[in-house]
């Protein structure tokens, strides 16, 4: 009698998992699987680059990644992440695959603080629920330099809130990293379903089934690397976002009670501007709690400004939160890869939720393209111009001196490899403010510009064309050359 089952146990099991798209660690990695015992309130920190595969499985106990609890005995695969598996109660991990660094972190006082922040927000939410006509739940602004754990904090707070049955609204004000959208966007999402261990906020709505529930963001276009490039435009986008978010919270009682958390880029930590943008956010979103990470000066400045004696009745609590000891700087290369990955996933999905992008070729005449001028765009184009002297079809820098923030342009090779935001406003729109503030329907990638035949080939996430819509591109995100083909 044939006994196929006597072959290696485990392999058959995994083959059944391949269908669901999870990455199966190869046999070599399996052999190097190792176990780690974590004491209560310690964490396993790991930095995995984009080429590496790292798998973690909980054998016993409980643990969470950015506030999202891992299921027991489920392999979780990581790539391109700097994270820490934290355990409150202690756990045993099985780890396989390779990482740039991995170690046991004992210094985890931050976690208690974060949990207490969660407790504060819960208290505020409970209060909001018991006073139906009040101001709603906590509205939290998180500020601090780059790489101090702001986004990790927000993800943890979000995950805990969702686990407690709330639907917090998250606003991402950092255009370098998208939230449910590619880089170059400023998005807001009300999180009504659980976060994923591997994918965080997960995926925006797609036409098919998804591993974890979709989350629908509202997206604005912020084609700048930093708010400092165009502080006024950045502020007006924030104002617009605040308007939508405030309206949304008024529509939905649970969302209102659950409150709001705003993530910001490190550039907001700018004493020279007297924290003008911070002050702007505080007033636009009626912030009720400011959390600062990583910078004592920032914390003191903000305390003086918002909760000092001069603030009077409008005082806002400013809390200085401990930066996690594991917060790791993401170097330029890592960030670049992260951005490329976000762009790629916007069109092609992830290995678990693969997507089919669609190609559309559209004549110049049917396109309404605007360019958002900025320093980074000028720099990018200057450098490409010097590198590519032979291409004299266009005069790159002459128009750059334009004082206009948004300028109607005809398609050109400059656009190649860039993301173009498709806005909800009509292409015939002439008002710069409307172009600037209109929400984003989607992004298209410029895969080819044929100046001879006067047409552009776009890669679009959606099979439908977008018709007569304004399209905007700018200096951010940078061109991606290898997205197609």
């Amino acid at each position, binding site marked *: 009698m044939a006994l*196929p089952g006597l072959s290696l146990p485990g392999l058959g099991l995994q083959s059944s998992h391949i269908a669901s798209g999870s990455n199966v660690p190869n046999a070599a990695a399996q052999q190097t699987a190792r176990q780690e015992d974590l004491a209560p309130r310690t964490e396993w920190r790991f930095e995995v680059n984009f080429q590496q595969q790292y798998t973690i499985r909980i054998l016993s106990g409980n643990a969470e990644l950015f506030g999202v609890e891992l299921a027991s005995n489920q392999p979780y695969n990581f790539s391109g992440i700097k994270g820490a598996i934290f355990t409150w109660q202690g756990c045993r991990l099985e780890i396989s695959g390779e990482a740039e660094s991995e170690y046991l972190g004992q210094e985890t006082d931050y976690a208690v603080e974060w949990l207490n922040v969660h407790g504060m927000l819960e*208290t505020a939410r409970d209060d909001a629920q018991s006073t139906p006509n009040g101001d709603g739940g906590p509205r939290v602004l998180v500020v601090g330099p780059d790489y101090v754990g702001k986004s990790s904090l927000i993800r943890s707070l979000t995950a805990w809130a969702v686990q407690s049955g709330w639907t917090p609204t998250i606003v991402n004000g950092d255009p370098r990293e998208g939230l449910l959208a590619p880089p170059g966007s400023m998005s807001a999402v009300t999180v009504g379903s659980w976060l994923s261990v591997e994918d965080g906020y997960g995926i925006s709505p*797609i036409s098919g089934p998804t591993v974890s529930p979709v989350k629908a963001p509202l997206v604005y276009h912020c084609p700048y690397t930093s708010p400092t490039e165009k502080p006024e435009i950045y502020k007006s986008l924030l104002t617009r976002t605040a308007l939508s978010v405030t309206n949304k919270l008024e529509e939905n009682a649970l969302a209102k009670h659950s409150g709001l958390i705003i993530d910001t880029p490190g550039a907001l930590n700018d004493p020279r501007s007297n924290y003008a943008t911070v002050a702007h956010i505080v007033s636009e979103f009626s912030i009720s709690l400011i959390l600062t990470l990583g910078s004592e000066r920032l914390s003191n400045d903000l305390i003086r400004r918002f909760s000092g004696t001069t603030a009077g009745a409008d005082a806002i*609590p400013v809390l200085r939160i401990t930066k996690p000891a594991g917060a790791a700087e993401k170097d330029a290369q890592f960030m670049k890869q992260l951005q490329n990955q976000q762009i790629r996933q916007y069109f092609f999905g992830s290995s678990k939720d693969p997507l089919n992008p669609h190609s559309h070729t559209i004549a110049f005449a049917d396109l309404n393209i605007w360019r958002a001028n900025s320093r980074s765009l000028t720099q990018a184009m200057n450098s490409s111009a010097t590198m590519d002297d032979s291409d004299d079809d266009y005069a790159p820098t002459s128009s750059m001196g334009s004082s206009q923030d948004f300028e109607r342009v005809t398609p050109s090779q400059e656009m190649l490899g860039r993301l173009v935001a498709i806005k909800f406003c009509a292409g015939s729109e002439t008002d710069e403010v409307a172009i600037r503030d209109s929400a984003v329907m989607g992004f298209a990638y410029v895969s080819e510009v044929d100046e001879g035949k006067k047409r552009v080939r776009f890669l679009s996430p959606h099979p439908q064309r977008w018709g007569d819509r304004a399209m905007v591109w700018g200096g951010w995100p940078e061109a991606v050359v290898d997205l197609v083909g």
Partner: protein
Amino acid sequence: MSARSPRGSLSGVSTEIAEDFSDSLKDLQGNNKFEIGNLTLIAKENTEHAQAISKVLEDHIRTTAPPRKLPALYVLDSIVKNVGTPYTVYLGRNLYQTFMDAYTLVDGNTRRNMEGMLKTWKEPVPGILDNTPVFPPDIVRPIENALIKFRTVMVQNNRGVQAQQPTYRNTPTPPQHNGRYAAPPSQGQGQPYYGQVRSFSEQGESPDRWADQSHQPSAYQQRTFSPAPQYQQPLGFPAQNQQPVNDLETIKRDVAAVAAQRQAQFAANPYDAKTRQELDALLQLQRLLDTQVLDAGALQQVQNQISALAVAPPPPQPTPQPAPAQHQWQPPPSIPQLPPQFSAPPVAYSQPPSAPPQQPSAHFLDPAALSGLQALLANGQKPSTPQMRAAAPALQNASHSQLSNVQTQTSTQPTINGADLIASLTKNGLLPPLPTSNTTPLPTTTTAPPPTQQQSTADILASLTKSNLFGPAPTPPGVPTPANTARPRVPMTAASLKTFRPELLHALYTSQPNQCSTCGRRFPASEVGRAAKARHLDWHFRTNQRMADSSIARGAHRHWFGNELEWIKLVEFDPSTTSAEDAAAAEARHGASGAGGGAGGKGGKKEMRAEERYVRAPPGVTRNVCSIDFEEMKSTYSEELQDWVFTNAVVMGGKIVHASCAEEMLKGSQKGAMASALQGGLGGQQRQRSATPDSALGKRKAEGALAGAGASRARME
């Protein structure tokens, strides 16, 4: 059945056989020996396809209705015992999952059957020479461990939150014993001591054990008389806080040892309910010790309890133990005399002769006000000032400092009452897990300080308040209440950032013990939680099924983002746990589509035309007969909703009917009456049915998916 295909058979054959097997499984309704034997035979003849068959069997066990799970498990049992390898290998891999998933969903009787079955898996198959057990121990043991945990959780749930967190009430002694520090020891001190000795002798236990412990007099005193260490430290009573860590380690070891002993007993006699309950309590205690910070008093008490258990395995008394702990920690006028205790607070509060901050409050603290406060206390929270003002109208005019005194007072009581919880834990461990709270009232959290020593207590409390140590007093879990009412209050101050609050974790972890094994999501152990988890698992199943279906998954593309209006109207919900009724209600409430998809909500509270109405299909329901025209309705999959729906349907009187039929009925009868009936059927939906159903406004959602912003999108092509 052409089962004899060569080895390395084509997967197609496997699939075919698996399908046959699956069909037969689906016909298996009960514990039918013939059918089970037949299925076993099929499995035996098709060992080449063992993998596929095992998979089908596992899937079936997972997905079939709870009453049919046991027969299916019997098939598994029969196969592994009569056929053995390779099925044991294949089925063994996921056995934990298969078994536990089923176990959590079935009723008590079935569970006992399953436990019996599990037991046989540890033994060799009867009548076979081979001595190896059916499944290797490393497969069965995790299940057994999980079952123990599971029972612990069950016991916990029955017991409520209270027993889970003995942490925050530290010592049995009412606050007045703080007086020891301000005044020479009085008679009052001796009471618990005698009480304890007596209680030991009452149990007929050897006083030697008591002597064993008495060589630690300081520890004993600490247990009996000290308030919580965290409150002592700042007052400069270092002696109270001696070596809690060492104690903790010792106690942990002891607990582990006793637990192991009980585990062995339990293994020897798994149907001994008492051993099991004790074991449950011990395991629970172990976890507590691991996760939470117990103060010295509580620790000492734990230690006593443990050594009691360690020395004397429970005597085989037919009646449950009268909870020695109860007697130990009550001052002589114990349980039966609750009323005096309850009535004590007014006296206590109103007679603080030398507690200046408290005095002004005395005259307005009438019993009514206090009962309000007690109600707050019973909620297990340190009342905030506004809460207190609300609860006790007499406090309206109290100054903040007066209130904070009362707050301090009230919030310390639970803390100081501490170890009662350990006692109740032990007690509950010994009693059947019934809602016992009525028959044996737990030691009250509101135990009132007798007036005699109020003065010194008040002094200490006052100074504590002054030294600002009472910011976020850890709150006791209080009576069993839903998690959200037991939440601690954390003020938004920098001072409250550093204290570890295990109760916050409790809300995230322990209070939601029912975990999805796929994604790690947790659900409360309540009925609601179970229902949500069932829907959630169903969602996983549906999703996986659809993702495996390449025809659906292959063509997937990202939706456009929604525009502002859509996003504002969009009501986020968890598609995996939201039932049809919830979704409908939410939609009605918000006047927007509950579509989780990118299409989002469609502007505003518009009436839908009948044929555009839909009802989400309840899990497992694919067909339905309209009870108006008796025509069959079939569910269809809505991409937009990511769920199965009945189109042209509304819920009426708890049943799904054709929306058009309902409308006809509506036209033909009294609109008002029908509307209200319909509203009732819709679970309190507030749709304005009086509007003409065929209103021109009747823009509908599915269209709206393309409409809304999409209306113009549709134009685009």
